[in-house]
Every structure is written in C-alpha cells, then in structure tokens.
C-alpha cells in the first residue's frame, strides 16, 4: 500500500469561541462536499478562542481549497495545513475489552506493555483500556485487541501541533460590550 495514495492532511483552525461557530464549519464541509475523517474542537488557553483539528483524505479533495474556504468564514481566525510541516499528532481511544478469564486478562496486560496504553478501569467481566498515540499506532492496538473481544470503543480523533518555535496563535481580544442586563454567555461553541 503506497503511503501517498492514502495521504491524510491535517488542518488546524483557530476560531472565535462564539455560539454557532461549529455549525458554520460543519455546514461549510457539507455544502462544499468536503468529506472529513475526523474533527476535534476544544477551548484553548484563551477563553475566546477555540482550536479545531480537521483530518481529511487528500485523495478526495484539495486541502488548499479547504483552507481557502475556511478563511471565508468570518469566525475563522487562522487556518493552516499543519501536516505540511514538522508536527506531532495524537489520537486517543478508550476500549472496553473482555477480560473474563486469565488468558484474556494476560493478553490485554501484555498489549498494554507493548503499546503506550494502560488499563484505567477494571471489573470482573471487562476492562477499559486507554491508548494515546499516533493514529496508526492506535489502529494497530485496536486490531490486536479485536481477537480478545472488544465490547465498546470510543475515539477522540486527531489533535495536532506544529513543532518548534513557529506557533499558531492570535493576538485577538474580543471587543467588550457593556451589557445592561448582566453579562451574557458569549463563549460557547
């Protein structure tokens, strides 16, 4: 399998943390027919700025078109293709797996030693395992858990960050508006 054919692109976007912004991005992806592999959103250290990480399949669309379209959204402060430069990326999964006999329990513990994974909940019948790693590694781990018996699985999708001193940040501070009727909750995606 050639790596180029499956080339994934990671786009990172800083957006204003305002009601409906996530909806604007998702609506854009849908109406431009952009298929996305994963999308994560979370607040940053600045309460008025959220950061999104979007993973797309480079086979199906030109990532530059997507970045250009993201810039058309007024609430998108900065968007860039983070996978073009040196970067780190992490995906996280919680996997509930069968551990109701010694054999399966031993197999899970052994896997957790070989992968950056750990058991975070242990019961009589099942255990929950957490793995945080590159996507490929997470997938490999899941594949190896399959024969043991996966009961339930959840993943966060990829978060990524460029390496070194180049930062993706913004000086932006929102305008303050004095409210008569008390402080309005302006910051929620």
């Amino acid at each position, binding site marked *: 399998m050639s790596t180029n054919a499956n080339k994934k692109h990671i786009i990172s976007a800083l*957006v*204003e943390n305002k*009601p*409906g912004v996530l*909806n*604007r991005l998702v*609506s854009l992806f849908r*109406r431009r027919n952009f298929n996305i592999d994963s999308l994560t959103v979370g607040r940053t250290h600045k309460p008025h700025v959220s950061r999104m990480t979007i993973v797309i399949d480079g086979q199906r669309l*030109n990532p*530059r*078109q997507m970045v*250009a*379209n993201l*810039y*058309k*959204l*007024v*609430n*998108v*402060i*900065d968007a860039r293709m983070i996978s073009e430069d040196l970067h780190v990326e992490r995906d996280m999964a919680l996997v509930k797996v069968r551990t109701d006999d010694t054999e399966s329990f031993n197999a899970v513990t052994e896997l957790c030693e070989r992968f950056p994974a750990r058991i975070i909940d242990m019961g009589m019948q099942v255990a929950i395992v957490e793995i945080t790693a590159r996507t490929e590694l997470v997938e490999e781990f899941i594949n190896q858990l399959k024969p043991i018996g996966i009961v339930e699985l959840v993943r966060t999708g990829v978060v990524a960050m460029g390496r070194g001193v180049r930062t993706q940040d*913004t000086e*932006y501070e*929102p*305008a303050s*508006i*004095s*409210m*008569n*009727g008390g402080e*309005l909750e302006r910051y929620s995606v």
Partner: protein
Amino acid sequence: MLLTGAEILLECLIKEGVEVVFGYPGGAILPTYDSMTKYPQIRHVLVRHEQGASHMADGYARASGKVGVCIATSGPGATNLVTGLATALMDSVGIVAITGQVARGSIGTDAFQETDVTGVTLPVTKHNYLVMSAAEIPLVVEEAFHIARSGRPGPVLIDIPKDVQTEKAEFGSYPTGKLRLPGYKVASSADENDLAEAIRLIQEAERPLILAGHGLIMGNATQQLQELAEIAGIPVTLTLLGKGALPEQHPLCIGMMGMHGHAASNHAIQEADLLIALGMRFDDRVTGNLKTYSPLSRKIHVDIDPSEINKNVKVDVGIVGDLRTVLTQMLPHVPRKQHPEWVRRIRDWQEDGSERDIVTHYTGSTLLGAQVINDLWKFTDGNAVTVTDVGQHQMLEAQYYPHQRPSTLLTSGGLGTMGFGFPAAIGAKFAKPDEEVWAIVGDGGFQMTLAELATARQENVDVNIAILNNGFLGMVRQWQEIFYEQRYHATPMVNPDFCKLAEAYGIPSMRVTSRDQIKESVDFARSIKGPVLIEYVILKEEMVYPMVPSGADLDKMIRRPKWGETQP
C-alpha cells in the same frame, strides 16, 4: 443616550447612509416599524412579498454600488427572503437583511412564527447574526455593513428578537470604533513575483484573451481593464455579469462568452494561448466541458476570493487581490503590443456570426424577441439601465443590447432566479432615479413576482416593464425541443391578459404585436412618469443560438445555419 434596540438599529442605519429600505411588517419586527415613525429620513417601501424586498435591495445595491437593505418579520417573513439572499450570494451583491425574531425567552420553543433563521440562512449568506442584547446592535450593524460591502461582497443577515428591539441600552457613537474582525482579511495588492510572472506570460503571448467578469465592475476597475486591453492589444470577452466592464462597441470587445455567448468569443477561448481571467469564476455556463476547456492556453486568474483560484480551472498564475489595485500595479509593466493576426482571426469568426444573425435576415411577420431587444437598444440609445429576469429574453438581452457603461445590466447570473427582474428593477430605480430603467422579463418569470405591480403603483416607481410574451417557459421549451424530442410538458402557459392586469393595478399599458410599433411603445413608456407595462407578443417557438449544450466542449455549439441555408 438611552434608546430602545429598534431606535439604536435605525440610528445606525442612518449613520450608514441608508436612505431606503424595502420591507414587510409583522409581529416580531413591529417595534422596529413603530420606531420608523420617528426616523422619516429612512424611506420604507412596502413590498407585497418579502422575496420582492430582497430582490429590490439587490437591484438597489447592484445599481448604486451601495449596500441594499431589506426588512422582514420572523418565521415566514424571513424564510421568504431566502431566494433573494441566495441570489445575492451567488452574484456577490452586498445586502443587509434585517429580520425580527421571537423574544429571547421563546427561542427554541416553537413559538408562533418562530424559525431558526440564522440556521436556515447560514448557507446563503456571507455571514449572519442573532443579536441577543440591544447593547450589541451598533457593533453588529457595523460589522454587517463592513462584511456586506468589502472584499467579495455578499448578503449579511441580522436576526433581532422582539424584546431586544424594545430593550433599552446606551447608544454612544457610530461607528463604534470597536470593529475588529480577526478572521476577516480582505486581499488587496498582488505579490510582486506573481505580477512579474503574469507580465512575462503577457509578453510571450501571441493569442491572448481577457475574460472580464463582474469583479471588475464591483471593484471599480473598468478603466484599468480598458487600459490593459489597449496597451497590450488584447481582445476582451465578457461574462454575463461582466457586461458593461468594457464598452461593447469598443473595437477590442468581442461580447459575451459561454453557453449563449457569441461564437467568436467561444472559439477565441478555445484557440487562445493566454487567458487573463479578471474577476470571474469559470462558472460551468462559461466553460462547458472543463476537460477540453481552452486546451492551448496558459492562464492568469485574478480574483479577490482565494477559494476561486484553481477551483474549476487550474491556472498558471493565480493572483488574489483587489482588481483595481492589482491592475494598477500591473499597468506600468504591461508591454505595448498588437496582435493583428489574432484580431483578424476573431473578426472572421464574428463575420461568420453576422451571416447567421436572425435580426438582420429575418423576414417573417411575427415579432421576434431578438427584434424587440435590438429595437429597445436602438430606441433607448443603448443607454438605459436594463434589469432582466431569467430565460431566453435574458440571453437575447445579453446578445442584442450592447452596454456602454458598468452597472447598467442587472441580472441574476449565478443562481438564475426567475422572478428577480421586476422587483430588482424597482430597487434599481430607487438607486438611479435620473436614469431610464427597463425591466425586461418573460411571461413566466414575471408571474412569479408580479404582485410588486402594487408596490410600483403605491410608490409611483418610474420603471418600464417590457414583457416578452411567447406563452411558453421559453428556455425550458428550447431544451425540450433540442434534448427531449419536443415533448413540451409543463411549458405552455395560459397567461392572464397582461394589459388588463396592469389596468387593474392602475398602471398604463400597451400591447405590441409588430415591429413597427416598437418605437411607439418606447415613446409611450417614456411619456409616463410612473410604472408602465408593455407586452410584446412574440414568436412562440423562437430559439436562442448559439448554444453550447450543457457539459459539451465550448466550441461545439449548436449554430443557426447561415442565412439562405435551411433554417431549423
């Protein structure tokens, strides 16, 4: 100064220079309508359907270059604006739509006349707002007008809950001085390297061609276009919305391109060795089959919207910037050139086109749409503001009404909105009260928004309505004739008597059935200061040629045979 939200809104509109708003009242916007009585500086035009208001604001904006404003109530009032917003978005027209919303506490409860309007209009606006406090109104209005008119213009909607309109807040200065849009960057000048590369391509080209679009008109860059064309001796072809960017009787202007463009333009695109696309977006109606589009050319594309570069057509040099700025940067470096052989080749195609022209050769007695447009052009000295609807008459206008000035043809290009023409013409007349405005419409599209006859009467808008009545949805019928073996399903129309209809609205009218009455009809229309309706009864099965079938190669046009050969 403590004011209500509605008063703050109107204060802001006045400071933005808004003189006229097109709208329709209703429960959730009533506080704003009530406050209008205190602000007589703003003229309110009562429409008969909110779609009409959105097209009027659009026509006003296209004709004036200013931002057009329309107002509607919540729920059905707001959803009726959607077609107009989509039309404005596709053609990059700056309008601000203001809608009432149910009170804040009722949002999300399926209250009477509640619709998620910011949700509904999200894909058809450049940006939209739900205002949750009166104190926010000034900054939101300032942002909305800025976004609507700057960069690539587009529609912006402001949804204001009823209790925000009545809430009191302190109103200070406007502009607020707080305008900061960190994610909104408007491109201005071009990168020097890109410019140098573009100049090099122009220097090397032997068969260059400029594709001139709407962006040149909106960016006030038509003078720069003319200089570029004249200095480098480059022929210019126009998109539908680019008509007027260069005077069409200019020797270098070869008229419209695309599906119903002049054959010479399409041939020139296919044989050019350099395309310079300015403020246009390679819509499928101008490219035909993308795989075979202009195969011999290198391509330069200048547009203010980065997402348009390489969207449909891959280009060699993509320049993101304001056209006036970019062309001004470019002009001192443009080589002085002539391309006599290339121009002669285009002349040959043009002459071949004239030999097939129906207006010069037709001898039948039944009036043709093409004759009507051609004569309207003649008798209005080619100087009217024409506002068309969508269909055959629109394409005939594009072919037979050469425009000499920018912003004198207003038409729904991208969305192809039937029903646009007549209300947009009303809006245009408010923008240009001293100019002669003609709404050129078909019998089909006119009936979609003819309720605005009452608006034209009530406001005594001096707009001349020319209905080209062939008793068919003509363009659909043309497709049925060519591609569906003449199965004219759902295209023949049983129409009202348009002159009696005008009479019912108190509007003078005239019916024209032969070519020798056309001059009289124009004189009649000009003699009336107020709305007037002229019905031109034309040939039922007229065809618009040339025609590039949808998705076909651009130079594989269906042509009218040369005169003397068998007519189709």
